[in-house]
């Protein structure tokens, strides 16, 4: 049995197990925090930052991502405030130009009042959340899909030596994709494309 940790989330006393993240503790207590790159089967990745919450530690306010931050005894957490809503709104406004048609994004955008056209559009249908890459590596252990490139050049690509053999019979990552990119990519016959070709960037 792991040790119990007591913390306060949105004014509510919450009991969690040591090693849990704030997100897990909050969900267990029925407190909803939005997520995009999180999946409970996978290692936390902390890329979309939409689950950012506010913690008070040593009397100082800090923003952390709840999908990674471990619970601590006596920790005070706020999952919703004007500042947090604004951060989430801007984050959504930054992701919407990539995948304007994404259902999960549109839903959150409505909730946080995010404008779809605030920033320059670059529709690739991919927000680089890495769910497909991580699912394939961590759960399927197939490594048929990967990231290539750095920074603004970052893309998701099928591994041409693996994907044509693994993907057609699996397709389990399709339903994870918030942007609908994978379905689109396969329909374009991209499974066997060489890795050097731009895959995710092509609308």
């Amino acid at each position: 049995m792991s040790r119990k940790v007591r913390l306060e989330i949105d004014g509510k006393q919450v009991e969690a197990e040591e090693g849990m993240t704030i997100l897990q503790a909050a969900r267990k207590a029925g407190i909803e925090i939005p997520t995009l790159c999180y999946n409970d089967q996978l290692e936390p990745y902390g890329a979309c930052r939409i689950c950012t919450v506010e913690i008070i530690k040593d009397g100082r306010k800090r923003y952390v991502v709840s999908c990674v931050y471990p619970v601590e005894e006596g920790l005070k957490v706020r999952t919703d405030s004007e500042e947090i809503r604004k951060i989430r709104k801007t984050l959504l406004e930054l992701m919407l130009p990539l995948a304007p048609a994404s259902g999960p994004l549109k839903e959150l955008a409505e909730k946080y009042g995010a404008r779809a056209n605030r920033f320059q559009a670059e529709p690739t249908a991919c927000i680089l959340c890495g769910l497909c890459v991580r699912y394939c590596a961590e759960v399927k252990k197939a490594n048929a899909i990967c990231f290539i490139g750095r920074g603004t050049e970052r893309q998701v690509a099928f591994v041409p030596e693996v994907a044509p053999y693994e993907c057609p019979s699996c397709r389990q990552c399709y339903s994870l994709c918030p942007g609908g990119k994978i379905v689109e990519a396969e329909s374009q016959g991209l499974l066997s494309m060489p890795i050097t070709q731009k895959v995710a960037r092509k609308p």
Partner: protein
Amino acid sequence: MKVRSPEDLEKLRREILARKKPDRPVIAVCVSTGCSALGARRVVEALREELKKHGLEDKVEIKETGCMGFCELGPRLIIYPQEIPYFKVKPEDASEIVEKTILKGEPVEKLFYTDPATGEKIRKLEEIPFYKYQVRLLLENNAKIDPKNIEDYIALGGYKALAKALTQMTPEQVLEEVKKANLRGRGGGGFPAGVKWETTKNAPGEPKYVIVNCDEGDPGAFMDRTLMEGNPHSVLEGLIIGAYAIGAKEGFIYVREEYPTAVENIATAIRQAEEYGFLGENIMGSGFSFRVKIHRGAGAFVSGESSALMSAIEGKVGEPRPKYIHTAVRGIWNKPSCLNNVETWANVPLIILKGADWFKSIGTAGSSGTKIFSLVGKVNNTGLVEVPMGITLRDLIYKIGGGIRGGKRFKAVQTGGPSGGFIPEKYLDLPVDFDELTKVGSMMGSGGMIVMDEDTCIVDVTRYYIDFLSSESCGKCVPCREGLKQALNILNRICNGQGKAEDLETLEDLCEVLRAASLCALGTTAANPIATSLKYFRDEYEAHIFEQRCPAKVCKALTAYYINPEKCQACMICLRNCPVKAISGEKDIVHVIDQEKCIRCGVCFQVCPFNSVEKYSPPTPPPARYGIKVKRVKKGEKGGA
């Protein structure tokens, strides 16, 4: 030989000193990257040749050293034992140096530093303003050491601190001394090194690692490179002492592959330290064993971030980890790993040898010791400077840097590399230390210091930094990858005269989200240049957006070139140099720029000997008419500025 005890070390030191007769002339030539680029290697060859000619090759030693500091006046050399400093030495000067200085002990006047203010020649290094106000604790020995020769380092008391730590102090005492000295991380964060060491020491898990961070990625900064190239043993000695205090048996030196000399010199240093028994099993008979490996980085700015650097050492992509557990607790292969910057480690032997109280007597209450800066930009004297913490920006820029080039007006100084902030004139009397720089929205960073004058457009420079940071982002988290990309889009638009009223608010929102939600410090600090430029130079943004005007006349889309008919002497120079043939004119006829054809490259502005080309922003110069007769300016009377 193996040094097996402090007594062995002292014996060896005496032997080395006895071999190096103190009155034997030594010509120390800086062959570090800067001076080498200016031809230092050829100077060395010429000197060797000249010594041979006079049969002096065995009587005079030529020492190839690391950086001596005043890089723009290279190649540099110093002649010992008299300590005669020469500047801008050319291979042709070799014969004069040997014939006059070496043979007769006479100085070569023309190679001395000339004070630009008085025109006087200065014969002593410490009297040159650039050096006078410096406290060169870490850099001082660079001019006396051949970095490829461990004996030079030992002769100056090298590895004495290690001997003291290993034989007279417990690991806990070493740790306490460093904590007491309040040595703060020189890589930029300013986190107390002793506290970090203690965290790693007390963290569960074995083995523990110690690491040197030499992934210096800031454009224009070369502090770490200089130490690694010029005095690698000082870094190594610090690392070994740290390993002893922490209880680490293995260490890594992460150095970027783009620093070939640093890689070579530290590799030589490790080999020699192994030979002499400063690395390996049972160091100096203390029972403490320690080994070091070099990891050559593939040159990514983000790899300087501690968790990204450790991922890189593990052989993975150098991307920061989304962990809130410090690398000091769970670092390389999830084992406790203590990472410090090159300069931080190099301070350790000094603290052990001279004590925490001595170290704390230098600098300010919150930041003790010295800091190395690479002072560059629009100042008269550029190069590496080492100053006590707490020196004011004004002293740094005006006393050491010799003020702004060409008598121009100071606009801002950017500290801390690309993710530092702009500091305006009103804060020039700010003492430079970790906390004060943070208070005004900038940071110490690794020690880059770029001075900007009135001809610098702050919006344009901000755009440059964001461009750099955006292309160096690892691309993992949304605020950094998408936020910087969109900030760059906006800044590009503003510089192109297509700014919108809401852009400033949008940039502020992006700063907020970068600071609050980025995964690592690359993202959180990337807000600094945008936020400080908006705070201190908002009027420049507003001029770009609302008046279509670039106050510094830098942004091409908002600037036009115009030939003043009162000043033009119809010399045809601009006309011949214009790459798009946008200038028409002939003998005695004032030249005219065709604004439609002009690409605003500024060549005419640079080449005109009469200063008759003028910049206009907004880009609406007076109408130009072809056919105006030249008004001749009398000889010796140039067109004026």
